[in-house]
């Protein structure tokens, strides 16, 4: 058997380099119609009247009355309409769409639509939503989700504490800025709707269309086109675009293209949930022995996936630390902001930022070195997690920490206070990430993966998971080829088409590599047994969670995840002593993400994920003001360029997961979650103050430092 981790050239790369790979906007057809969505220009209002311009022939309006089935995007609560009904709940909510052959004309017509509104008092912040003084957006109390779990005796721990430390943390919005904006092409032919587009989850889109059209499932087909990045942004949101494009195709009988421009994509698609996290720690003998974590997410106008994002945040609340007495509270608040949604890490980045920063602050308060303080609290094999799950595998945090401390020369550098006239700081973070779906997700999904060995002895991978840059076109081919002992080139894995592939679930949470990859590994084993040269053989398997995993979704007790990945980051920063501009100079990472399925692909995931985490902590500012985002383009919303990116140095420690393919665990999200707290710790080190909020903005540091001086 070859070494699965050894890098190979990516299968998807040549076409992408040449520019011949087709993303959704690269498909053109004669007589194709363009669509422009007419959106609410009020954050919250009743629609009083709509006045349409005179439409030339060939142009049409599509609105809620053109939805053949239910005007609801299928998600967890199904409260989110494709087109607003009587009320709009966020600035930019789709009200209707205009379709026609000339793009400029479509834009012109859509700008000429006049809508009269009657405003309703809007709710923007967690606090306003919590106070519930204005007419609620959702239910009676604005809560999409309200959860709670406990372990041990937190009240006892607080009663007996030497000291109680209470802090409040805030995290901001984060926009995905996948480089390819969202888009879909829809057709209605022979009684069937077909949608092509940029997406992570073909079956989410398919199921949404089944509900929206009220069609039997064989009348809906969804095909993924080469996807230019997703990061969670193309998890649930594509259903919105697919629906609108498909309604237009259904009404006109023509092929319809709906591709967002960047400004639309920045302002009106989902983003990472802002959070307020309050942590109260009971300290005894210089150790955190009890903790209460209260997590509030600003969830936006519709429930979307917020309840599950909140669950992941809650299950990550105590980070990589064993604390025996735990209480975790969580609420997802409705506000009049675009629905917040999935984004790499899915609630964990907020929680890990808070717990890591809290642990740093407590360590400093106790006069201890944060690294040693954290190590003293770390999980070990055999411990139970905050939800009472069992850690069955070795937790190699001591080794991870040792490596990163040595690699970064942490303690030598820690003494340094200045560099080239800048304030110098270094910060450390330690963390975990739960692999795969949260809680009972996999049980509900029951994914199916299939391999088809063709007569020409080539093998097709038939799954619904997509390549969006993270590498499965290469890594999954490697897995299957290696099990079967055939060349990788003989394994075929095309962009999924729901007419051809079974539902192996969404492309999220690193489940493509670990869960679906593991399933494919087992399918390939069976195919190998059944292999008959020159004949077609099809093998298919349904995923079953390992028997030993116990989880109660109603009490949040047990194994919230089947396995965990672990890591530590060290970040070096230089802060300008006058402007407090932050430069992130170097980023170190050591991860245990199981067996890497390709070292180079993993390296790419690490750099990209960390840079998104660094951006989250520094440059990526999105403010909400007067009912609208202030940053509406990528001129205003800044993501790191090559000039902002640090040098990276990384290493791996490998503790394989026995059900992952060749021992792979989760990777993509893990690489992001630890960066923000490490940046924060580094800036704190440089300035000698405590911080409680990301993004860390120079103008706020200036105010804080002036206060310090006085």
């Amino acid at each position, binding site marked *: 058997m070859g070494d699965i981790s050894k890098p190979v050239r*990516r299968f998807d*790369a040549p076409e992408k*380099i*040449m*520019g011949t790979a087709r993303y959704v906007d690269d498909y053109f057809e004669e007589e194709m119609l363009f669509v422009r969505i007419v959106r609410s220009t009020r954050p919250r209002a009743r629609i009083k009247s709509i006045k349409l311009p005179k439409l030339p022939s060939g142009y049409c309006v599509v609105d809620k009355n053109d939805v053949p089935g239910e005007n609801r995007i299928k998600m967890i609560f199904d409260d989110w309409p494709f087109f607003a009904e009587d009320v709009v709940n966020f600035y930019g909510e789709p009200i209707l769409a205009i379709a026609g052959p000339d793009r400029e004309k479509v834009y012109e017509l859509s700008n000429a639509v006049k809508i009269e509104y009657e405003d309703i008092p809007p709710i923007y912040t967690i606090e306003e939503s919590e106070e519930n003084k204005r007419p609620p957006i959702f239910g009676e109390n604005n809560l999409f989700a309200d959860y709670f779990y406990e372990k041990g005796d937190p009240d006892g721990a607080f009663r007996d504490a030497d000291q109680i430390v209470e802090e409040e943390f805030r995290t901001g919005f984060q926009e995905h800025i996948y480089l390819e*904006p969202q888009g879909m092409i829809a057709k209605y032919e022979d009684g069937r709707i077909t949608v092509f587009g940029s997406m992570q989850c073909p079956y989410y889109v398919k199921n949404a269309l089944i509900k929206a059209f009220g069609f039997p499932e064989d009348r809906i087909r969804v095909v993924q086109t080469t996807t230019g990045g997703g990061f969670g942004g193309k998890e649930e949101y594509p259903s919105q675009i697919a629906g609108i494009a498909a309604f237009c195709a259904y009404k006109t009988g023509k092929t319809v293209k709906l591709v967002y*421009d960047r400004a639309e994509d920045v302002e009106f698609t989902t983003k990472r949930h802002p959070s307020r996290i309050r942590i109260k720690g009971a300290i005894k003998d210089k150790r955190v022995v009890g903790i209460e974590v209260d997590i509030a997410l600003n969830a936006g106008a519709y429930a979307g996936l917020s309840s599950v994002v909140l669950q992941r945040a809650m299950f990550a609340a105590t980070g990589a630390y064993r604390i025996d007495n735990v209480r975790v509270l969580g609420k997802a608040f409705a506000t009049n902001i675009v629905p917040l949604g999935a984004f790499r890490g899915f609630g964990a980045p907020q929680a890990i930022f808070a717990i890591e920063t809290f642990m740093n602050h407590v360590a400093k308060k106790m006069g201890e070195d944060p690294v040693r303080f954290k190590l003293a609290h770390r999980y070990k094999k055999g411990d139970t997690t905050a939800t009472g799950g069992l850690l069955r595998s070795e937790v190699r945090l001591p080794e991870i920490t040792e490596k990163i401390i040595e690699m970064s020369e942490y303690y030598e550098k820690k003494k340094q206070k200045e560099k080239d006239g800048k304030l110098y700081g270094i910060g450390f973070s330690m963390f975990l990430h739960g692999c795969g779906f949260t809680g009972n997700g996999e049980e509900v999904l029951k994914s199916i993966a299939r391999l088809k060995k063709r007569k020409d002895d080539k093998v097709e991978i038939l799954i619904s998971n997509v390549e969006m840059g993270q590498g499965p076109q290469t890594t999954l081919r490697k897995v299957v080829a290696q099990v079967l002992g055939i060349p990788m080139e003989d394994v075929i894995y095309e962009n999924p088409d729901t007419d051809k592939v079974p539902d192996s679930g969404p492309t999220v949470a690193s489940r493509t590599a670990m869960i679906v990859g593991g399933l494919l590994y087992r399918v390939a084993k069976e195919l190998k047994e059944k292999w008959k040269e020159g004949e077609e053989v099809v093998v298919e398997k349904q995923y079953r969670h390992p028997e030993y995993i116990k989880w109660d979704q109603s009490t949040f007790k047990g194994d919230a995840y089947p396995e965990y990945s672990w890591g530590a980051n060290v970040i070096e920063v230089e802060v300008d002593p006058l402007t407090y501009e932050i430069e992130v100079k170097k980023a170190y990472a050591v991860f245990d993400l199981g067996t890497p399925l390709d070292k180079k692909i993993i390296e790419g995931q690490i750099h990209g994920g960390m*840079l998104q985490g660094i951006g989250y902590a520094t440059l990526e500012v999105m403010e909400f003001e007067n009912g609208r985002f202030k940053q509406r383009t990528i001129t205003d919303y800044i993501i790191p360029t*090559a000039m902002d990116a640090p040098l990276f140095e990384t290493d791996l420690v490998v503790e394989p997961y026995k059900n992952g393919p060749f021992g792979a665990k989760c990777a993509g999200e893990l690489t992001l979650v630890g960066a923000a707290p490490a940046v924060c710790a580094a800036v704190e080190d440089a300035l000698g103050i405590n911080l409680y909020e990301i993004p860390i903005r120079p103008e706020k540091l200036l105010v804080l430092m002036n206060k310090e001086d006085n």
Partner: protein
Amino acid sequence: MKIEFILNGKKVEVNTDPARRLLDVLREDFGLIGVKEGCGEGECGACAVLIDGKIVHSCLVPVGNVKGKEVTTIEGLKDTEEYKVIHESFLDAGSVQCGFCTPGFVMATYALLKENPQPHEDDIRKAISGNLCRCTGYSMIIDGVKLAAKRGEKLWKD
């Protein structure tokens, strides 16, 4: 209005509104899909082309401005030896993930190495700072550029 220019080495003529974005003309009228629209605001570099050898964001250029000029897109570079070196180097360095930014980075790399065959890390970072990539963290793209500089050595000096 009739606008003549040289596109990927061939003389072409379009009859269109001179205010139309060069990006749209290249994609829609000539089917050159290697030129991508990532922002339409001049921020991302996915639409990068060469105009008379200089790298330009085609989303900011009205097609009327290229009258009589020489426009080169990734499709026009594809058969050159220089391109082949960049192609192989990007493959080996792992410079590509989702790929949406990649043709733009290839153009930037080509423009850089033509001007500065042995760039330092800082030169590379500066040269690609007009291109955004959300996937890679840039490091492995920079490796790709370095590799192309090294492998192409003589090519870049002509």
